[in-house]
């Protein structure tokens, strides 16, 4: 099986730390993850809302490129960390399989660009690949600085598990929790792990969006979380970057580090903070302090 990394726009901009940490972690696990050459936009919400066909064709172009790049290997997966890209590409994959006539139309469109339809390329989220392909035992075996003592709020958001729940439970997802347990951390029991972070509303109707973020931040703090872990660049951005605004709006202190699950994996695996893009976060300090290297899985940090 071959994995190809599909970044999408966020992981090259606001979500840079997600890209860096994920590639570092896959590197440390010896799983080759080359980037898809010449990839294009996933279509995301904007295209989907205006012209589904164009959005699907955009996605399908990425599939064709992937098949070409993986020449000879019929079992090729795009590893897609961004939740919006993951959903967009996954939707295209499903629609193509459910509607053969759509497949035909897309194939024609691709042919005009000198490409052929590749409907066997699968769309996978790194959470899925890590838990189901690589396995938690392997993750545990790579831990050099256990996160024991750290209380983590795993936040899944919406698009990774809804509407499609390909690798986790739709109502009570647990893949991220299980990874955190493998790293030695404790995870928080909180019922908000799939509740909306505000999504793109923070950019359009700010007070509605930030209220949704506030609910999450407040509850995570109330329940004693040391850190919120996300698997989506927009969730991370919303929850971290509006903390000051939210604090002012609601007269409440909601400062809490918000990191990518791959960053905590990297920390536990003893990777360099810089390689994990930790310096790109606004306030990761308390988290870095937590992860003091330990021997024998015993926590000796603050």
């Amino acid at each position, binding site marked *: 099986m071959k994995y190809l990394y599909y970044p999408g726009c966020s992981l090259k901009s606001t979500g840079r730390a997600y890209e860096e940490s994920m590639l570092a972690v896959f590197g440390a696990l010896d799983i080759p993850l080359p980037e898809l050459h010449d990839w294009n936009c996933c279509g995301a919400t904007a295209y989907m809302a205006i012209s589904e066909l164009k959005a699907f064709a955009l996605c399908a172009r990425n599939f064709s490129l992937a098949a070409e790049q993986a020449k000879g290997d019929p079992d090729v997966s795009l590893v897609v960390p961004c939740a919006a890209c993951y959903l967009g590409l996954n939707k295209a994959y499903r629609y193509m399989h459910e509607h053969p006539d759509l497949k035909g139309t897309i194939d024609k469109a691709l042919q005009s660009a000198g490409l052929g339809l590749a409907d066997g390329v699968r769309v996978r989220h790194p959470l899925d690949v890590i838990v189901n392909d690589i396995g938690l035992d392997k993750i545990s075996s790579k831990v050099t600085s256990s996160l024991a003592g750290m209380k983590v709020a795993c936040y899944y958001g919406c698009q990774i598990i809804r509407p499609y729940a390909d690798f986790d*439970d739709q*109502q*009570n997802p647990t893949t991220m929790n299980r990874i955190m347990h493998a790293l030695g951390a404790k995870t928080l029991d*909180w*019922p*908000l792990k799939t509740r909306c972070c505000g999504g793109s509303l923070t950019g359009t109707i700010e007070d509605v969006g930030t209220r949704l973020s506030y*609910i999450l931040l407040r*509850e995570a703090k109330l329940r004693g979380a040391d850190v919120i872990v996300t698997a989506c660049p927009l969730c991370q951005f919303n929850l971290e970057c509006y903390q000051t605004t939210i604090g002012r709006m609601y007269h409440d202190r909601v400062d809490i580090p918000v990191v990518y699950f791959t960053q905590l994996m990297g920390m536990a695996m003893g990777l360099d903070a810089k390689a994990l893009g930790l310096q790109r976060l606004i306030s990761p300090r308390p988290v870095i302090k937590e992860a003091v290297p330990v021997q024998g899985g015993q926590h000796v940090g603050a």
Partner: protein
Amino acid sequence: MSVPENRTNGTPKIGVYICHCGINIANKVNIKETVDFAAKLPYVTVAKEYKFMCSDPGQELIQQDIRAGLIDRVVVASCSPLMHEATFRNATGEGGANPFMFQMANIREHVSWVTFDKDAATVKAKALIAAAVHRVSLHRPLEQTRVPVHPDVLVVGGGIAGIHASLTLANAGKKVYLVEREPTIGGHMAKFDKTFPTLDCSACILTPKMSAVRAHPNITLWTYSEVVGVEGFVGNFKVKVRRKPRYVDEDLCVGCLECIEACIFKKGKFPDEFNQGLSQRKPIYIPFPQATPLVAVIDPETCAHFKTGKCKKPCADACQPGAVKFDQTEEIKEVAVGSVILATGFKAFDAARVGRYGYGKYPNIYTSLEIERLVNAAGPTGGELKMADGRKPKSVGIVHCVGSRDNNTNAYCSRVCCMYSLKLAHLIKERTEAEVYNFYIDMRTPGKGYEEFYERLLKENVHFIRGRVAEINDWAMIDEEKGHLIIRVEDTLIGRVRRVPVDMVVLSVGLEAQPDADAVRRLFNISCSHEGWFLERHPKLAPVSTFTEGIFLAGACQGPKDIPDCVAQAGAAAAEALALIDKGSVELEPNTAFVNEEVCAGCHTCLNVCPYGAISYIKEINKARVNGALCKGCGTCVAACPSGALQQNLFTDEQIMNEIKGVMNHV
């Protein structure tokens, strides 16, 4: 039955009758064109159309033409043979021809109801009629045999439906075998405190019937037993029943409870199934005080003797009649019956499947079945409803449609939950004086006195909030919500999302088919709907019959229903069985196999595959021969015969090939 000749007698004269079925067929199939088409088919001497062929005048058309010598075989193009094959075979016979000189073309279910384009429907109808004409031209007269109906009846499942059916039959003087899987009969109804809409005490109306079953001379009650084998056919079933060892002799035990007192476990330790695991029982136990039979049972999974072999067995010492018997083994009983009533009931939906409702995660969230036990005076708390911390709940939310009307679980309505939720609301209010909230999608209360019961609950100040609950958790947004379960719901009547904090939640779980329904259906050779309910022969006109003659349905195994409906159905199923018994005999479909001796090479292949031992080898002539009385028409030998010497009446190779030719020639 004589071996039919391998060719038709004389030139066939076929009458084709095309039914309009009102507008059911006529609106989609061009009848005129079809009649003209049929008239030109080989051997067709009469082609007619009529509004309703199944009506008396319709059948009369066929009979007149036969009597006038115009035809000697009949094709009716109308509905499914399941609907009217018997009707038209009968009409053919009444007219004076052999009833099997008939073939049906299904142009309703297979054509007009499913093909939307009129031209395409007409083409398809023609092809099916051509097929039937080609086939019937090779039909031969066949004789039906009659076999007597065994007057005994098997009832499977001892819930209210099985109990009522058994008593009805037994009171009519018929002998009944009632087989129940659990150590006691009673089913779900035995667990309830009260029953809607009259709120009469469930035990008060059920236990007299349970004792009547036990005492009735015509009923053989086998609890803790399962049917493991069924053979035969209508009127003549052979049934094997496995009686699991209960390690207590049913004939000797007097139900005095001394053995339970004496058990080395001084207190109950294992989840009590009858109380939904809300209390603990000992390894030797009687499920509840009115259990029928009132006989102890030992659970080998938890009994110290079976686990370790080291127990001193004080239970056996304490038993004066000496009923405790650790060496009991399972017993297989074989009985002959003429008909079967399946009354295996339902299983309550597993609430943990809807993760967002927090069942199993938060304390004080119960299923309706658990609440039935908790409000029951004979239940684990003596009827007191308390929270995990011992306080009485001040507010209780009842969530409807858990596992019903939900495309993620079951799309159908479970029919009884609105009503039992009202009942539970009343009982909870009565026991705790709590504020009670019902969260419903639609209130469904059709039934005698049901809407009035709803009205009554409205007056008892129970709150009704219309909306499907989104989630239940412990996430408090404001201080007032702290320490409560929060029910989040869109109240569709005020158009807002609400958060309702409560102390306790009741999940009104829906009804599902039994997990082993598919295995049971295979055993009895009947069908299931795609949801797993046993399928009735016709939803309106044969609601307690199945597609297998002699097997009837009663109660919730056929679909969600309440007690009054279960009882009505049980009565109907008993009446069907009685009708069969009183008729005394049944006619068998003459679809038996026969050997074409000219072709048979005496290779024995068929002898080895016949499951009924119906084929013998005649040494003198080196040929196989089928005993028509034993043959069940399964067709296995026909498929196995290497030379094609074995053929089956109603399904000869040439009939089937000609039928296919009919289709192919005309599409």
